[in-house]
């Protein structure tokens, strides 16, 4: 599976996983022939809605689940035939989960998991200090887990995943349930971790577009167990056929804006007055970018000052909707066959 190159951080080959067939239940196909290659040093995103198969893929790659067919390697080791060598090189954080025991303190919890990976005591203390500082838990180091808030427990779980300084870390919805500020801290930490350790790899699953867009060099869009697209966020966004859309704000003193409809190349135009400022907000769809120059000239001629001008870019959500026909947070159709 290595194609003559150095072992990839993660490589899957026609990976398929089904559930339920053994118990004569309706078979649920969670992954269907997934082919994926995550390079060393890469932060790779797997973007998809709930039930797309992201967690199933992570479970297989972390040796918690066997594939039904196909294969997968992590750091060059087969997840089925050589799970121990895989486990020595990985760690995982599932967002929304907590780790440890209520009776232990935050520091004792990190120490517990450090020992399970054979991290020497002094190094474990150094890493714990750094991670506690990063997660804002330093002041809670000697607090029992039973006295932590849910958000703090999740931050601790996140720190726990990095205690072993893994070659490859699997982050399964790492910011799930965290507040905005904590999510931002977590994303900043991941970005720094990847930057400071160019040989380390991250496989991040998320259904938050911002997360994938901000952190990942490449993103795969997954739905119903299938990889629908795989490229850089920029290339994915460019792949969506979208007419140029401009958003303008013009001063309220402007003349009759309907006159803009005379400009050649404008496909549609809508406007409304801002309720607080009275400024007119325009959304103009044009055939090509150059048309906006004529629009600006016309506005100037009308005596309507332009306060703001921005071109709307497609987002990863746009890409997902274009490919799947529904939003990331929308429920799948009732006849969905995946879990």
């Amino acid at each position, binding site marked *: 599976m290595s194609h003559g190159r150095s072992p990839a951080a993660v490589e899957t080959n026609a990976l398929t996983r089904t*559930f339920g067939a*053994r118990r004569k239940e309706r078979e649920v196909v*969670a992954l269907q022939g997934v082919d994926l290659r995550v390079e060393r040093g890469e932060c790779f995103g797997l973007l998809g809605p*709930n*039930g*797309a*198969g*992201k*967690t*199933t893929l992570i*479970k297989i790659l*972390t*040796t*918690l*689940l*066997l594939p039904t067919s196909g294969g997968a390697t992590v750091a060059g080791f087969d997840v089925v035939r050589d799970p*121990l060598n895989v*486990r*020595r090189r*990985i*760690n*995982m954080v*599932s967002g929304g*989960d*907590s*780790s*440890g*025991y209520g*009776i*232990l303190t935050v520091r*004792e919890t990190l*120490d*517990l*998991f450090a*020992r*399970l*990976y*054979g991290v020497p005591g002094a190094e474990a203390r150094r890493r714990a200090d750094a991670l506690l500082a990063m997660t804002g838990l330093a002041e809670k180091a000697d607090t*029992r887990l039973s006295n932590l808030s849910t958000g703090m427990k999740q931050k601790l779980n996140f720190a*726990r995943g990095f205690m072993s300084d893994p070659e490859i870390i699997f982050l399964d919805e790492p910011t799930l349930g965290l507040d905005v500020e904590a999510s931002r801290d977590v994303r900043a930490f991941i970005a720094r971790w990847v930057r400071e350790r160019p040989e380390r790899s991250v496989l991040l699953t998320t259904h938050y577009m911002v997360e994938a867009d901000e952190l990942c060099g490449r993103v795969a869009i997954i739905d119903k167990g299938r990889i629908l697209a795989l490229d850089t966020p920029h290339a994915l966004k460019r792949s969506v056929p979208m007419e140029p859309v401009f958003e303008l704000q013009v001063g309220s003193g402007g003349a009759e804006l309907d006159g803009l409809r005379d400009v050649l190349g404008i496909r549609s135009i809508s406007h409304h007055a801002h309720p607080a400022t009275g400024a007119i907000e325009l959304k103009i769809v044009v055939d090509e970018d150059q048309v906006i120059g004529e629009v600006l000239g016309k506005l100037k001629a009308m005596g309507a000052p332009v306060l703001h001008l921005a071109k709307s870019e497609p987002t990863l959500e746009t890409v997902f909707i274009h490919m799947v026909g529904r939003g990331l947070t929308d429920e799948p159709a009732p006849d969905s066959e995946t*879990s």
Partner: protein
Amino acid sequence: MTFAETVRINLGAIWARARVRVVASWREKSWVVGETIFPFLAMSAFVLVYRGLKAPPIYEAFVVLGGAMIAYWNNVLWSMASQFFWEKEQGQLQLYLITPVSRMSILLGMALGGIVMTTSRAVVILVGGVLLFHVPLPLDRALPAFGLFLLTLGAVYSLGMILSSLFLLWGREAWYTATLFQEPIHLVSGFYFPVRTLGTIGAGLAALLPITLGLDGIRQIFYGEAAHGFLPLAWIPPIQVALLVLFVFLAQRALATMENLGKREGRLTLRGG
């Protein structure tokens, strides 16, 4: 990874998992009271009943030794056998399963921690029984009794390792299963009376449990013929060794089976998608 490195990591894992139990046993004050004072009161009730019935004083000694040993069996059921099930319910089991340590090290850590945790309860019952009820305990025979006690603990906790895997597969019924294993075994194990009282067949079946045999042997070491032993004392240590070896082997097999089955059917973790 070298052999020495593998050993080092696994010893670290045993210590780390045992430490959770040890810390828990001393940090939680309500636990200390609940696990020492209350069981002592339960044991005292049996002593007072025997005293009220004017039973031979040796029966009070049976109760004290049984009360000390029963603590270990309860620990095996509630903190050992059920543990993997609870760990799974809390989403913690998967964190252990993705580590590079042997699953047996995790179980061994749980067992050693449980033994340390439970010994405080056993000591309170034993010392309290001797001091408060003046139960005779010939200290000159303490060393061989302690040896058989350690052998018994080894076999009992190895059985706990097997149950831990089985409870995980039985899933939601773990709570009920633990209860099922608790009360009948309290009855047939002779914690509060000589197991020979159950008759040859009953005692023979009960003797399949290492805790029954161990208690029978320890009583014989301390009180000789008066202990109304079921099996000859000389048979008991070799049987316990055999059970220990068998249970450790079966525990390894059960653990591997549980893990493979869980990985095949997706039953090791809760979250899907």
